[in-house]
C-alpha cells in the first residue's frame, strides 16, 4: 500500500472479499455439526522404536502413539478396552470420519492414521489405490475365533487386507402401532400409504441396494438403464419421505416421536428402541435382509505396523466384542462373543434364533470406483430434483 496514493473506496473491495469468503465457507455460522475431532495424526510418528525392538518389551511397558480414523462413538474406550488394558502406556488418538466416503477421501488425501474403519462395499479402492497394508494374520492371537465366512469378506484379490469386526443387518424398521398389518417387503419404503412417515438413509449406494432387492437387479451389474429407473423411483419416493437420516439418533428420534413409521435402519436402532419400549418391529423382507460388516485396515507404509497389528488383535478381544454387542447391539466377528449372548432381546435382534437368517440375508458387494461415482451422483440428483 502506497501511503502517497489516496485510498480507493474500500466498500467494493470489502464486498468482494466478503463474497469470496462467505460463499466459500458456505454456512459460515454453522460449523457446529461436523466439527472434526482434533487432528491427531502427527503423534503417530513419535517413538516407533519401542514396539519394533528385537527383544519385545512386556506389553505393559510398550509406549508410543497410535492414530485411528474412526466413526463417532467407537472412539469410546469401551470399544478398545482390551488394547487399553494390555498396553496402558500407549496413547491412542482418534480422528472421526462421518461416512465411508469421508474416511476414504481422507485416506486418499494422505491422512496419516495408522488404522481406519471402512464398511462393506468400500474396500476395493483402498487396495486399488495402494492405501492399505496386507495383514499378517499369524500375528493375531484372536484370529482363529473369527469365522471363515467373515474372514473371506475382508479379502480382496485373495489377500487378507482387512479384518472383520462389527456386523449388522439392514432392514425396514417400523412402528407396529402405525403399521399393524406389518411389513414384508423393502417396497414398504416406497409405499404412498405411509406418505410423510418414511425415512430413508441419506446414501446413494444404500438406495441402489434397496431398489436392486425390490426389482431383483444384480447389484454387482447395475446397467445405466436400471440406474436411471432407480433414480426415477427415488425421486417419486421423495414425496413420501419425511427426511433422509444421516445419523442414527436422528432416525431414532423420528421413530420415537411417531413421525416416522417405516425406515431403512440398522439393527442397533431396532434394539435401542425396543429396549425403550417403543412399539417397533424389524422386518424380515421377502427379498431378504441386507447384511454389512465393518472392517479394520492398516495404512500402507505406517511406521507403527506392530502396534497397529496389536490394536487389531485386541479389537477382536472378548471384552471389546462384548461391549459392541451389549452397548451398541451389533454383532462381533469373535464367535466366542456371539455364542455367549443370552439376552433374548439381542438374540431376537441378531436373528440368532432363526437358523435360516443368513440364507435370507444379502451381503453388500464391493463397489468399484465407477459404481461409487455413478451411484452417489444418482443420489445427489434425486436430492436436487425440482
Amino acid at each position, binding site marked *: 500500500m502506497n*501511503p502517497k496514493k*489516496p*485510498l480507493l*473506496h474500500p*466498500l*467494493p473491495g470489502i*464486498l*468482494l472479499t*466478503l*463474497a*469470496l*469468503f*462467505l*460463499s*466459500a*465457507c*458456505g*454456512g*459460515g*455460522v*454453522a460449523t*457446529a*455439526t*461436523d466439527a472434526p475431532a482434533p487432528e491427531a495424526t502427527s503423534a503417530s510418528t513419535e517413538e516407533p522404536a519401542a514396539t519394533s525392538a528385537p527383544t519385545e518389551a512386556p506389553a505393559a511397558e510398550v509406549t508410543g502413539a497410535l492414530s485411528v480414523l474412526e466413526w463417532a462413538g467407537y472412539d469410546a474406550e469401551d470399544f478398545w478396552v482390551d488394547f487399553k488394558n494390555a498396553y496402558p502406556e500407549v496413547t491412542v488418538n482418534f480422528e472421526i470420519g*462421518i*461416512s*465411508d*466416503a*469421508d474416511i*476414504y*477421501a481422507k485416506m*486418499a*488425501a*494422505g491422512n496419516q492414521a495408522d488404522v481406519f474403519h471402512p464398511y462393506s462395499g468400500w474396500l476395493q479402492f483402498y487396495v486399488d*489405490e495402494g492405501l492399505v497394508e496386507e495383514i499378517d494374520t499369524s500375528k493375531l492371537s484372536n484370529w482363529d475365533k473369527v469365522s471363515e465366512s467373515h474372514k473371506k469378506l475382508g479379502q480382496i484379490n485373495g489377500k487378507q487386507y482387512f479384518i472383520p469386526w462389527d456386523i449388522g443387518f439392514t432392514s425396514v424398521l417400523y412402528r407396529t402401532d402405525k403399521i399393524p398389518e406389518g411389513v414384508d417387503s423393502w417396497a414398504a419404503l416406497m409405499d404412498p400409504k405411509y406418505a410423510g412417515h418414511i425415512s*430413508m438413509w*441419506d*446414501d*446413494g449406494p444404500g438406495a441402489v441396494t434397496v431398489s436392486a432387492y425390490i426389482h431383483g437387479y444384480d447389484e454387482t451389474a447395475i446397467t445405466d438403464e436400471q440406474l436411471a429407473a432407480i433414480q426415477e423411483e427415488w425421486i417419486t419416493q*421423495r*414425496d413420501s419421505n*419425511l*427426511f*433422509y437420516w*444421516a445419523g442414527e439418533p436422528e432416525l431414532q428420534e423420528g421413530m420415537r*416421536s*411417531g*413421525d416416522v413409521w417405516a425406515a431403512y435402519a440398522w439393527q442397533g436402532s431396532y434394539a435401542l428402541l425396543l429396549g425403550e419400549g417403543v412399539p417397533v418391529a424389524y422386518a424380515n423382507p421377502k427379498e431378504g435382509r441386507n447384511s454389512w460388516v465393518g472392517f479394520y485396515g492398516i495404512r500402507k507404509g505406517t511406521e507403527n505396523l506392530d502396534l497397529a497389528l496389536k490394536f487389531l488383535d485386541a479389537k477382536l478381544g472378548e471384552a471389546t466384542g462384548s461391549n459392541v454387542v451389549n452397548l451398541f447391539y451389533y454383532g462381533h466377528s469373535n464367535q466366542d462373543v456371539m455364542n455367549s449372548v443370552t439376552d433374548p432381546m439381542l438374540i431376537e435382534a441378531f436373528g440368532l434364533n432363526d437358523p435360516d437368517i443368513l440364507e435370507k440375508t444379502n451381503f453388500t458387494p464391493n463397489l468399484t*470406483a465407477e459404481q*461409487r*461415482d455413478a451411484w*452417489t*451422483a444418482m*443420489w*445427489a*440428483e434425486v*436430492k*436436487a*430434483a*425440482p
Partner: protein
Amino acid sequence: MTAAPSRPSEHLPQIRRIWGRAGRGWDRRASFWMLYFPPLLWLGAFFLIPLLLMFAFSFRPDMRGDFFQLWHPSLNQYEKLISTGSYWRLLWTSTQMALLISVISVVLSYPIAYFLAFHGRQRVGFYLVLLLVPFWTSYLLRVMAWKMMLGTEGVINSFLIYINLIQEPLTALLYNRNAVVITLIYVWIPFATLPILAALQRIDLALFEAAADLGARPVHQFLRITLPLSLPGVFAAFFMVFIPTVGEYVTPLLVGGSRGSMYGNIIQDFFTKAANWPFGSAMSMIMLAGTLILVAIAARLINLRDLLE
C-alpha cells in the same frame, strides 16, 4: 450531502503528516508488514491456498491417483455439471431462497436497529447484549429448538390443538423449504441489525433539527434523511445475509426434510458422501462465480460510490 458527518478519509492528510515526522520510510513499511502479515498469512494459508487447490481439483477427471499429482486439466466435471439440469435449477432455487431470506431479515431488523439507535439511549449496550444472547448457545441447539417449535408434537401444533383450532397436527411446518426460510430468517436478524445500527448511529442528529426547523414532518425526515443515510448499512446487511445463505447447508439438513435440500447440501454430499472432490469443487466454483457476478451486478445497480459520497 454537504452536512454529512466528517468521514475518516478527511483525517488522512493529518495522519500522514504525523507519520511522516515520526519515522522514515522503512519504519512505515515495517509497521505495515507487522500489522498486515499475520492476517495475510492466515487468509493465504487457510483460505486462498485451499481455494486454489479446490480450483485445481475441479479440473481433475476423477479422484484416482495421488492427492498431489501432475495437473492434467480436464473439463470432465464441468461438462457433467452443465449437462445436469437439476443442479442449475437448484442453484437458482437456492438463490431465490437467499434473496427472500435476506430481504425479510433486513426488513425485520431495520426497526430493531432504528430503536437501538434512536431510542436505546444509555441502555443501548444492554439491548445489544439481549439481541446477541442467543449466540451464546450453539447454532445446533437453536436449530433444534426450532424443530421443537415446528414439529408435529411441537409447541405450535400442541397449542393449536389445545385451543381446538385443528384436530390433526400440521405437518407443513417442518421438513420443507418454508421451515428452512423461517429458521434462517431467525438466525440472521441479529446479524443484519448490526450494520444497519452502525449506519444509523453515524447520522448527525443536527440534521433532524435542521429538517424540523424547515418544517419536515417525522415521516419526511425518515424518508429524506434517515433512510438514505442508512442505505449503506442496509446493503451491507443484505449482502452479509445473502452471500452465505446461497451456500447454506446445515439448516436445510436439519429442518429441510427430503425436499428442502439447497445447492450447498449437494456440494457437501459430493465431498462427504460421494468421495468425489473434483465434482464438489466444480460445483463450488460455479457457485462462487455466480455469487460474484450477482454481487457485481448489484454493486453496479446500486452504485455504491454515489451512495457513500
